[in-house]
């Protein structure tokens, strides 16, 4: 067994970028190659998606959305991971990756139609290289592995990002997909957003072991990193993606973060977690931390910070305006229109019956 561990460790490009506690080292930071504009872009994107997230919660509270699941506190993962990929690399998200999709260019108002009861998936995944949100936990992980295997079979250098939460690592599909990825050396980066909670169940009830260490059992490297450091996430995903691109197979990154909000707007976290836990994580806020670092480096000034805040405010208001002005598409097309490529005759008849039953009503 020791040999297996050693082989994997020797082949691990992530390990020396991070301290044993998962902090990006000064050496690792210096190797990122990001100029000041790129560093500011990471900040800007985190601010933009946080403001959109807050606006979505406002919309839910005002009755404009049926449900909202905040990603407050997880912005560094959303932004750092997407920045580390090429736009041609596909992302297979779970259901809390609104920020990732936004950065990929998906219109946030379109995305919110899912939570307004108008759509199950409003963007074309092929246009944004961003798969639909997957609501059944961990079921998207084998899709990512299949896509990555397909990239390998097509001899392309695309890689795939598979994201999921800590709860997903308990699901059979997650283990199956990790195993398939190892066996097929699929070019996939597994990114666990370990936010500590699966609705009301804490990590300690989810697993008795380490998520990152599981990778070894599947024959590839795994590492636990600080998920509230946007540069750490960027570095880890970049290194794992490079390795996958070179044909070296998958990596598992466990990015430790915290779900500052409720599971969704229907949840009440005061029933299962303490205010002090929240305060401790608030002190590690990914945006405040990064801003302090940028200021310390002289990479950002007050004027830029204010301009970014204004831009985020305008974008959030535009999202709200566009969403609330959206018409409700006709029911026949909305519910029958996308089921089949070539709708069979009996299906068309049912649609006709349905549509004529609506006439005059």
């Amino acid at each position: 067994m020791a040999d297996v561990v050693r082989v994997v460790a020797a082949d691990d490009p992530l390990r020396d970028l991070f301290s044993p506690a998962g902090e990006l080292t000064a050496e690792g930071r210096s190797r990122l190659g990001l100029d000041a504009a790129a560093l500011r872009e990471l900040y800007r994107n985190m601010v933009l998606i946080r403001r959109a997230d807050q606006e979505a919660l406002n919309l839910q509270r005002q009755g404009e959305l049926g449900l909202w699941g905040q990603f407050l506190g997880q912005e560094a993962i959303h932004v750092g991971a997407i920045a580390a990929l090429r736009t041609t690399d596909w992302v297979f998200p779970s259901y809390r990756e609104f920020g990732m999709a936004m950065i990929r260019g998906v219109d946030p108002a379109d995305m919110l139609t899912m939570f307004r009861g108008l759509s199950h998936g409003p963007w074309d995944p092929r246009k944004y290289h961003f798969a639909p949100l997957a609501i059944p936990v961990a079921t998207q992980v084998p899709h990512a592995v299949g896509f990555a295997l397909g990239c390998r079979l097509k001899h392309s250098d695309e890689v795939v990002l598979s994201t999921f939460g800590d709860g997903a690592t308990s699901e059979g599909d997650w283990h199956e997909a990790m195993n398939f990825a190892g066996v097929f050396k699929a070019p996939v980066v597994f990114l666990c957003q370990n936010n500590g909670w699966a609705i009301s169940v804490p990590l300690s009830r989810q697993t008795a072991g380490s998520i990152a260490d599981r990778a070894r059992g599947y024959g590839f490297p795994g590492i636990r990193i600080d998920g509230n450091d946007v540069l750490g996430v960027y570095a880890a995903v970049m290194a794992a993606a490079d390795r996958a691109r070179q044909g070296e197979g998958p990596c598992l990154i466990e990015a430790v973060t915290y779900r500052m909000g409720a599971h969704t707007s229907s949840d009440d976290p005061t029933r299962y977690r303490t205010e002090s836990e929240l305060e401790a994580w608030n002190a590690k806020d990914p945006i405040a931390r990064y801003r302090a670092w940028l200021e310390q480096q002289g990479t950002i000034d007050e004027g830029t910070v204010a301009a970014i805040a204004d831009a985020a405010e305008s974008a959030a208001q535009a999202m709200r305006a566009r969403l609330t002005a959206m018409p409700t598409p006709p029911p026949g097309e909305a519910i029958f229109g996308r089921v089949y490529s070539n709708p069979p005759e009996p299906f068309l008849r049912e649609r006709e019956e349905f549509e004529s039953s609506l006439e005059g009503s």
Partner: protein
Amino acid sequence: MEAVTMAKAINLSLRDALTHDENVLIFGEDVGALGGVFRITDGLQKEFGEERVFDTPLAESSIIGISVGLALRGFKPVPEIQFDGFIYPAFEQIVSHVAKYRNRSGVPLPITVRVPFGGHIGAVEHHSESPEAYFAHTAGLKVVTPSTPGDAYALLQAAIDDPDPVIFFEPKARYYLKEEIDTAARVPIGKARVAHEGSGVTVIAYGPTVSVALQAAKTAAAEQISLEVIDLRSLSPLDMDTVMASVRKTHRAVVVHEAPVFCGFGAEVAARISHDAFDLLEAPVARIGGLNVPYPPARYEKLYLPDVDRILQAADAALAYG
């Protein structure tokens, strides 16, 4: 062409699909060097290589799960589930994703899931099941099953050509049924066929029960009773036009399948006939199938499965009704 078994016809159909479209991939448990436990994929890995015909780890959910990703990447996956009773771990992937992905995203998934199904092979538990109703119940899937080597070849071609997902149930007890096949013949998905013309009672069957129904028709003919046998071939979409054309002629119908009668696919067929031909029917629509018990140990399967006698009894009862 010389007569071939259904097993060989499926093998030829897969071979032709691999030849004609470089995006067709075949994978599953033991489908590579072994050629599958029923040898359906025999020789395909040797001919097309390990990148196009390959063994996977033993995990049905991910066999279907990777099919979704491969289809998104431009492939036409033809995964094999080794036995009917082993499809359940993949149920979530099939129902929650394969069936619904197009509706959710607009992206069609050209996946054909091959599943040997049905009993009559003297097997241990989990090897003789008929889970077709679970899938026919799910919108977004097409569900087909051939009863002859020729249909097996052609329906599989149609399934692989289809831009949307198809569950392809292979009646494993009929794998060794032999006939001449015409590989140029086309069988569209969603069209039933009249397997035997008759005028007294319509017997509606699919997959493994078609040959039982044909045997019943032959026996009945000797007693001057005329049965018309309809082979549905496709459960979803369901070709009620062909069924109703027959029932309008016979005014009597019996539906036969191996799956339990309770909530079985026959319930849908019987309800539709009863609704659409209420005024024409001379007798209630009868359903013949498995009992509402888990599939029994092999020594008892002949008592559980529909046979010629049960079909004839149902036909006699329909003719004598009222």
